[in-house]
């Protein structure tokens, strides 16, 4: 008899010929999530099990697994050889001593001579004999004892099903290059795209000395937090100060942010090509700031060919904050360090920029030269929490 964790995987995406691909990806992701915790990870049919761990690690294991996209739910359970007397005894010992209950048996092992109804009744009867404070109520019960009898000669007793993150296994949806700023939105965008199976790469623009090492560390910290859901994130820190200087010197101040963002998109696309990302991801939400109006998005979008995924485009700030709190990035996001967009923030940034004007202004800049120079200074950081 030992404590184990029983994991169920979502079934919807398991149809068709891709099943093996999905399952093996999911298994790898779940295993990776448990890195550093001594335990055994077993996968069979549509289930996975975590066994042979220290009791004191159980909470951590559950916490980590509930963040793996593609898992459906899980149950901490007792694993024991299929022997009805033993099972009934365990059910009785583990259950509360008072209240109403039901026993639900799931019998995958069809070779047994009793059916699930009969087994439920026997276990229920045993429990009633042991504890006078218990009564059976199949419909309105205080707790449910689940007994899962498998074909491998073992049975599992559990009480609760803890929902997991749902979604698709990270990696099955291709790679995406996220613009990660350090604010509230971009980590949430990472989370949402990872939930649809996208493996996240991230690019951050760093304007030392205008933005500090602390600001950079904050971005690394955000990537680490999100990696609980996304798996390890490769973060590209791109030196951006010289580009900002060049724009400040040569372009009208109200177009500062517009042209900066065009550079950001171009560099993100270059990195996306290099790392085989099929899309660029941003945390933009329509109308949130001057650079996120429809006109601004047109002007910044026009410099790239790859699709740009904006999972938050229709979300209110309050909705975004709610997710940020849930995934634990909010507290870090609101640490008050400068980000590169606030450094040369004009008093009146253009709200409805024009592509032709932006292009004309960029004539004065050595766009490719500046991009090459920035890319040559990229620092790559592997962000994970393990």
């Amino acid at each position: 008899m030992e404590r184990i964790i029983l994991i169920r995987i979502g079934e919807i995406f398991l149809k068709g010929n891709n099943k093996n691909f999905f399952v093996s990806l999911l298994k790898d992701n779940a295993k990776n999530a448990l890195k550093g915790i001594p335990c055994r990870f077993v996968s069979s049919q549509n289930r996975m099990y975590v066994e042979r761990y220290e009791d004191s690690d159980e909470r951590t294991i559950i916490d980590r697994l509930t963040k793996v996209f593609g898992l459906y739910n899980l149950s901490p359970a007792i694993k024991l050889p299929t022997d009805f007397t033993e099972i009934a005894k365990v059910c009785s010992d583990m259950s509360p001593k008072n209240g109403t209950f039901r026993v639900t048996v799931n019998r995958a092992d069809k070779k047994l001579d009793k059916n699930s109804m009969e087994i439920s009744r026997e276990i229920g009867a045993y429990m009633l004999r042991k504890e006078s404070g218990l009564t059976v109520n199949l419909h309105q019960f205080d707790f449910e004892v689940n007994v899962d009898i498998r074909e491998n000669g073992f049975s599992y007793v559990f009480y609760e099903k803890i929902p997991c993150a749902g979604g698709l296994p990270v990696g099955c949806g291709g790679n995406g290059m996220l613009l990660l700023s350090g604010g509230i939105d971009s980590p949430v965008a990472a989370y949402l795209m990872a939930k649809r199976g996208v493996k996240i790469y991230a690019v951050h623009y760093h304007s030392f000395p205008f933005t500090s090492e602390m600001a950079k560390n904050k971005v690394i910290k955000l990537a680490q937090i999100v990696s609980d859901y996304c798996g390890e994130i490769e973060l590209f820190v791109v030196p951006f100060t010289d580009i900002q200087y060049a724009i400040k010197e040569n372009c009208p101040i109200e177009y500062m942010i517009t042209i900066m963002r065009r550079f950001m998109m171009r560099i993100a696309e270059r990195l996306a090509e290099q790392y085989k990302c099929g899309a660029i991801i941003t945390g933009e939400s329509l109308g949130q700031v001057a650079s996120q109006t429809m006109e601004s998005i047109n002007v910044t979008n026009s410099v790239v060919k790859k699709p740009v995924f904006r999972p938050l485009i229709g979300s209110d700030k309050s909705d975004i904050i709610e997710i940020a709190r849930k995934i634990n990035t909010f507290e870090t996001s609101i640490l008050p360090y400068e980000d590169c967009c606030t450094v040369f923030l004009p008093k009146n940034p253009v709200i409805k920029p024009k592509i032709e004007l932006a292009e004309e202004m960029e004539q004065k800049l050595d766009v490719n030269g500046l991009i090459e120079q920035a890319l040559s200074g990229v620092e790559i950081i592997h962000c994970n929490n393990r």
Partner: protein
Amino acid sequence: MIFLDNASTTKPSKDCINISGFYQTERFFNPSAPYHPSVVAAEDLSHFRDTIIKKLKGNGKIVFTSSGTESDNFALFCSKKRNGSRIIVSQSEHPAVATCANELKNRGFDVVFCPVDASGRVIEEEFLQLLSKDVSLVSIMHVNNETGAQNDVKRLCALTKNFDSNILFHSDGVQALGKVPVALDDLGVDFYSMSAHKIHGLRGVGALFIKNGLHLRTFLYGGGQEFNVRSSTENLAGIAAFSCAVDYAINHQKENYEKVKDLNGYLRTALSEQGDAYKIISDPGGSPYILNFAMRYVRGEVMVHSLEKYEIFVGTGSACSSKKTDRTVAKFANLSPEYEKGVLRVSFDENTSKDDVDYFINKLNLEYLAIEKYMRG
């Protein structure tokens, strides 16, 4: 490396490290235990306490704490005050005092903030206006941590006591200890906060001087250490280093002061030569260990980062965010908008050389010119 942020912390001296090492490895015993090595440790503790009090010419006792901040909290919260009475603190206090004062205000005390001049020094006439029969406590720092402004604590304390001898007078001496002359009896204060790591001691050790005849309420309950007002197993290693640091700092106070005063004057002149680029905030009459100035157009934090690449470390004298606009210096220094975000704090120690200052001013000017042109307008 050129470390010009000694007001934030100083490099521990070899002597301090050696003596603390001895108490961490050899004489590590808990001074409260009954066996012989502990009795020796207890005697040592008493010796260190006496050394510090003698060096500071104080007629009272020293309670060891974990920091200057703790000492300030201890004095402000545990001193006897009538409910709802008036507490006077200066407008330029360190957050360790200012936030305590705000909390006391929340608890119903009539907390008033005494105006200061543009260098952060308490204005005497304003202070006198605030004294009233309702005052129970005054807390005015000795040397300001951002500008080095030095309050005439002796005079302010005397004025207070003349007005009403029952008013308690606390002074935060964290930036004064070992840097400017400190004779506690002569100052006349009731409570005086100190910190070890500002004078080449170790972090995690502070002290509060309590004048004879005065009592504080218990701050930490427990095993009864530190005269039963601040329980905790004594940090003997840190206290030994503190005593060593005080000993050195007081013995060399005069010569170090003169040396640093020269450096301060030298840097002042060099900054003034740059015209409007820099506006000096620190008053020449303050502690020479701190020289605070503001740059036109360039943010202090940006310059701090720019100087990092030369391994020059200076302070901004405030939190690290431009979003946090309630910087103390900016509040009292009457800076015009071009200067208000450009505050830099240079703080010396006795080991700073003229060459260090030359190198600093050279790189400061260089970086200033490189950045300023992008930040104008």
